[in-house]
């Protein structure tokens, strides 16, 4: 653990990605791969920093329409008072972009925590116990998987919040609907991993030694199976941002005076763009693209580093482990669904 490596990592990352073995991967990486990882970490770190310090950075509140000088006015071009202009509703674009990071981070954190907990539990139980329970769960997972996920998210956002769009109602609805869509994916990965590890000799031997079933599951299987999670985590996080934006686009966003949300702002700005008003769409659009880019870069790099074939060539021989296959094999198809969210 050399100090220069640690210094190059934004400090905030540790609080958010605390459980991720990122530092190790950073040490492993070389050349461009390290560049991509560092770029991803920097963007993600910036994203989180902005979210945490939004109240200090943003010059106005996300729902503020006027200050001492009077009303801001709608669709004002960028000026000294409003460096990114104002929206069609008369909000300050810059402030809403900044506050939007907070909403996005909240949704990501909730969605990821919920999906991880539910997905892992189901995957572990299903994979370890097997039998009918396993088959039924797999079929249900497949069924949910077959439903267009954005539409499932819409239905769930109605069910969960009764269609209300208060701050927490909106955030919870978005987070939970993303969760339901993603549980099958965590579930599949964890289940496959559990089945694989279950057959490993050390689990068998633990059983022989009289360890209880739950003990085996939580000690051995969980510890091994969660090695692939950081990668899914980043994919899940970027999909959360895109799903939130998609929900906003289809009219299921969060009410603008309750929170700032990029997808909602972008949706409202669509007709501005065709009228030559570029500033209302550009910045929230860029914010979405950048945050997803940052998180995905981290995910991609971690994926590469987890796989000896994809890791920088000089290191290929260094560490070919059991983790590798599952890491690649299961993250790639997840990409397929990322796309679909956004389609």
């Amino acid at each position: 653990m050399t100090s220069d490596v640690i210094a190059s990592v934004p400090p905030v990352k540790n609080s958010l990605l605390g459980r991720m073995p990122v530092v190790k991967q950073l040490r492993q990486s070389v050349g461009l791969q390290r560049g991509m990882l560092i770029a991803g970490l920097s963007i993600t770190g910036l994203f989180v920093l902005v979210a945490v310090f939004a109240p200090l950075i943003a010059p106005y509140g996300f729902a503020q329409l006027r200050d001492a000088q009077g009303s801001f006015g709608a669709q004002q071009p960028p000026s000294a008072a409003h460096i990114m202009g104002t929206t069609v509703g008369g909000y300050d674009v810059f402030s809403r972009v900044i506050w939007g990071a907070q909403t996005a981070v909240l949704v990501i954190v909730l969605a990821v925590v919920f999906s991880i907990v539910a997905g892992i539990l189901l995957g572990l139980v299903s994979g370890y116990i097997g039998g009918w329970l396993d088959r039924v769960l797999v079929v249900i997972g497949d069924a949910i998987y077959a439903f267009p996920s954005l539409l499932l998210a819409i239905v769930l956002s109605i069910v969960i919040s009764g269609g209300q769009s208060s701050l927490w109602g909106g955030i919870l609805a978005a987070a939970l609907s993303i969760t339901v869509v993603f549980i099958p994916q965590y579930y599949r990965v964890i289940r496959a991993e559990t089945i694989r590890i279950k057959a490993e000799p050390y689990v068998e031997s633990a059983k022989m030694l009289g360890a209880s079933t739950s003990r085996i599951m939580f000690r051995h299987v969980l510890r091994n199976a969660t090695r692939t999670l950081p990668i899914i985590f980043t994919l899940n996080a970027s999909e959360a941002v895109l799903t939130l934006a998609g929900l906003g686009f289809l009219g299921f966003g969060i009410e603008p005076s309750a929170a700032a949300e990029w997808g909602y702002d972008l949706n409202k700005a669509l007709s501005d763009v065709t009228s030559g008003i570029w500033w209302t769409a550009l910045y929230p659009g860029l914010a979405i693209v950048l945050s997803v880019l940052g998180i995905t870069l981290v995910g991609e790099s971690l994926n590469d580093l987890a796989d000896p074939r994809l890791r920088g060539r000089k290191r290929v021989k260094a560490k070919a482990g059991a983790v590798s296959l599952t890491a690649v094999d299961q993250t790639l198809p997840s990409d397929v669904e990322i796309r679909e969210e956004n389609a």
Partner: protein
Amino acid sequence: MRDMTPASTFTRRSLTLVAGGAAFALALTGCAGSGGDSSSSGDAIIVGTTDKVTTLDPAGSYDNGSFAVMNQVFPFLMNTPYGSPDVEPDIAESAEFTSPTEYTVKLKEGLTFANGNELTSSDVKFSFDRDLAIADPNGPSSLLYNLDSVETPDDLTVVFKLKSPDDQVFPQILSSPAGPIVDEDVFSADSITSDADIVEGKAFAGQYSIDSYDFNNLISYVPFDGYKGVLPAAESPVQAKYYADSSNLKLDVQEGNIDVAFRSLSATDVDDLSGNDKVKVYDGPGGEIRYITFNFNTQPFGATTADADVAKATAVRQAVADLIDRDEIAEQVYKGTYTPLYSFVPAGLTGATEVLKETYGDGNGGPSADKAKATLEAAGVTGPVELNLQYSPDHYGPSSGDEYALIKDQLESSGLFTVNLQSTEWVQYAKDRTADLYPAYQLGWFPDYSDADNYLTPFFLTENFLGNHYDNKEVNDLILKQASTPDAAERQSIIEEIQAKEAVDLSTVPYLQGAQVAVAGTDVDGVTLDASFKFRYAPLTKG
């Protein structure tokens, strides 16, 4: 920008079309689109819209998109001629009360449908009977509340037997979504007839007949020369294109891919297009209104709250009326595509007043925090009033979020209110609003027929669709009285009286009236937006 004050744009027989700041008036007195004959052989005019059709069958739909199509292809007994809010006999020779409960309509002779079938009194009876018999959940049968039965003494005479006498609204109902006349040989008497069967059967007898029909994508209309009603014959074939996204509609009309865009461009789009030389923006009076409804039980100091107090509750509603800055909403959020509304009956309709303008705010239509403060203090309300305000994010257009954020801001910046704003998805909203869950909430209204009654009866009778526990016996009786007052002047004065009384009660606080906006290429003539609130394709010509 566009100086569309309702008073200037709205006169009975003429209609003002204002485009991009350069106002010009086009008088339409029954001969719209003069000299349009030469162009009728030319290309079809393409009209784009984001409206949606649900079904062509009049018994099965009760929405703007479907009614817009019906207005082109089905005849009515009564209809509003171009430029007027009042109805006249359409395919009828005459229509009048022959006794207090008998409304007799005489059809014109030799009427036919586009398929060659004769249009007789039996088709008329069939049309209304099936409406009531089917009573489709999505249908307009509730508008025929006063119809008891229909009789046909001969082929040209129809007698409507009414339940309550001297119903002045009934002629208007005949022009409403419950009024289209359909072909008994094509339509089913007891179930909704499919669009395909209607188009294939050519069961049309309005200004147009439908030539080709691709559901919610493309409808091709050809003029029907057998139509002999009150409206002039159609000028040229029209193709109606249906859009999902208004920004595509905007780009297509801007690029000249379509000739006319009608309903609904965003305010930003309209504003941008009004500065574009290639298109003209037309404004006309709109029947659509927006208002805040108060629930008399659950609003602050409402009847079922802990600190119930009728005077305080009234003061709260009046303070809201004092504080709302209608001009700011109309300009900032809607860029003039909506105009301030100062009464319950929208400007332009016979009997409309501007009673709220004098009564509330600064007396000139602007807000007044001092007045609101005085009103609240007089009633003994101290400290900021906490108001839970609800709106639907999309049912009344995508700008509702901005609209209500601004209302919240206006109420709060006076220091007199603390507003909790919340939006709810439409279906839940529609359920919750009548379940007493919302103390104050947004609603909008699009009229069934262009008469003041349609802005009073559904709202302020004791039994009203708002379900907000408003009950004023006096208002209730006046509303019933105006509906059966045959004398026009007397009826108008009652309507004015109702508005004045309602202005004190403020069961609702109306604040915006939607303008009809159409955008057309500069080579298109005859765009007609009038107080019938029906957009007709027939006068359109392309030069």
